[in-house]
């Protein structure tokens, strides 16, 4: 074997090994979450709020409710801003301001979540003089908007220009072309993007620490402190009680399931879009 051929084989082995390693790491992590998570699951876990200090049992129903409410409200606030900004960028391609908006969206995507949390605190909690689920939703909306902007722009760029031209040629105005042709044609792609963004913010902890703050009770009022699954995991993981640590694993399991469900629906939708295109 010549040195070159030997190198070829060695490097081939190494790149394959790194792929194997990645899979191994993933399997280990998922396995731990699954095994430790399922072990302590029971009906109470899904339906009960945390038990009073010192008592056993209880669950994370408060956090499940919180995650749904906070995520949905964040998406509801962020969607119009993100979509319209995305439409703006897509419809003004080539203009300098559109480039600036795109760059800002990219930069905002890279803002660390803890910074969003601090901003949520100083900008909202201090002004409202109270921790609240709503300030958490608004903080998360700051993460939701830039991803939605980019996804909307990308999906709108996939709409065949022939369709838009056909609509313009019929005398439609820009707003009508975008709404009735582009958005409708790209609807599945945009929905898929929204679900992916929701999956992302549903798992965020740092923006909630100083906004939603957490609560031991099942809370439906967005103006009051509220718990959420990531928050509960963080608090329980740091607790000295094994029973609570076990609940952290179960909560992690539930959170991963929720995120996988959102991602799966998103992927399914994308697959449908691609099939329509083909």
């Amino acid at each position, binding site marked *: 074997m010549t040195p070159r051929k030997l190198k070829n084989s060695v490097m081939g082995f190494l790149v394959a090994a790194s792929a194997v390693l990645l899979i191994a790491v993933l399997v280990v992590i998922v396995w731990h979450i699954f095994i430790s998570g399922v072990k302590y699951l029971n009906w109470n876990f899904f339906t009960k709020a945390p038990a009073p200090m010192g008592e056993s049992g209880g669950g994370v129903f408060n956090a499940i409710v919180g995650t749904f409410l906070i995520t949905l409200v964040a998406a509801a606030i962020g969607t119009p*801003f993100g979509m319209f900004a995305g439409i703006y960028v897509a419809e003004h391609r080539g203009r300098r301001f559109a480039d600036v908006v795109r760059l800002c969206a990219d930069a905002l995507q890279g803002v660390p*979540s803890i*910074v969003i949390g601090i901003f949520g605190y100083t900008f909202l909690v201090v002004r409202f003089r109270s921790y609240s689920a709503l300030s958490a939703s608004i903080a998360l909306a700051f993460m939701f908007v830039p991803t939605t902007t980019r996804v909307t722009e990308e999906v709108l760029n996939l709409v065949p220009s022939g369709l838009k031209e056909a609509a313009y040629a019929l005398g439609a105005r820009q707003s009508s072309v975008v709404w009735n042709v582009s958005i409708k044609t790209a609807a599945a792609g945009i929905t898929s993007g929204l679900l992916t963004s929701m999956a992302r913010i549903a798992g965020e*902890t*740092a923006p909630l620490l100083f906004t939603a703050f957490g609560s031991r009770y099942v809370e439906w009022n967005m103006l009051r402190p509220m718990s959420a699954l990531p928050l509960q995991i963080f608090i329980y993981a740091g607790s000295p009680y094994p029973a609570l640590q076990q609940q952290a694993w179960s909560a992690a399991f539930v959170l991963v399931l929720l995120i996988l469900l959102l991602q799966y629906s998103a992927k399914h939708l994308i697959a449908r879009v691609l099939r329509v295109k083909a």
Partner: protein
Amino acid sequence: MVTQPSRSDRRELVHERIFTAAGVTAAVALVTTIVLFLLELFIASRASRAAFGLPFLWRSEWNPVTEKFGALPMIVGTLVTGFGALLISTPFALGIAIFLADYADRKLAEPIKYLIGLLGGLPSVIFGLWGLFVLVPIVSKFEVWFGKLVGSEALVASGTTGVGLLAAILLLAIMILPFSASLILESLLVVPTELKEGALALGATKWDAIQNVELPYVQKSTVGALVLSLGRALGETMAVTMVIGNGMKMPTTLFDPANTLASAIANQFLEATSPVYVGSLIQLALILFVIAIIINIVARVILRRGVQQ
């Protein structure tokens, strides 16, 4: 032929105006957000600047009891964990990307790509949970063993908990791996196959083609991808917070508990009561924000150039 505007025309015109206004508003709001963040964090951290001024950046004392604050330990912690994680994960990220682009067939590549997406989509707090209960005990064993090996009681002592810089670096390396791997893969996939086939036709081995044709071609975008990953690592909060040990002192070894800018805030903000303490933590957030924005813009510019080339 030219008719008076009808009711439907007028309605369409109103739609058009609302639509345009909404687009411009959202676009302006997005740009304003960055300014708003800067302003808000700057104003909210003024108590810290009043007390320490610019030396806050390089003072190495962080003492909540005496209320003396300097950001250097956190800046060091952030840079050490960020670059450490990048150093460890980059060879694997490159390996995985090359494997998927050049070695695996579609049937194998698709599920692996799916797994990478899955790993990248796991929340930070879950990595933290796993890190705290699985990774940290392993790191602790290693640190104690290593401390005994070199005969250092100080290392053994700091190693018994397992939390600290090393655990944070390892966990971060795992977390940014799917991110950098998929970014590098994206750029590898746009390398024209003719180029590679050209090299192969000249008698080059597969690796020759990768090393001499493919990798030079994606040099710029790979650097962009790595800078983006670094930005991720520097700002990563929850997982690091859970395994780095909330150390206030300047770390001297990799086994020491420490803090990053992000983890210091997450660990201490709710305990901070005095305006100077709160202001100093917000100042850390401001530093982190500025670093993140700069890194992201630089990375995007590099990536865009890489694509154009």
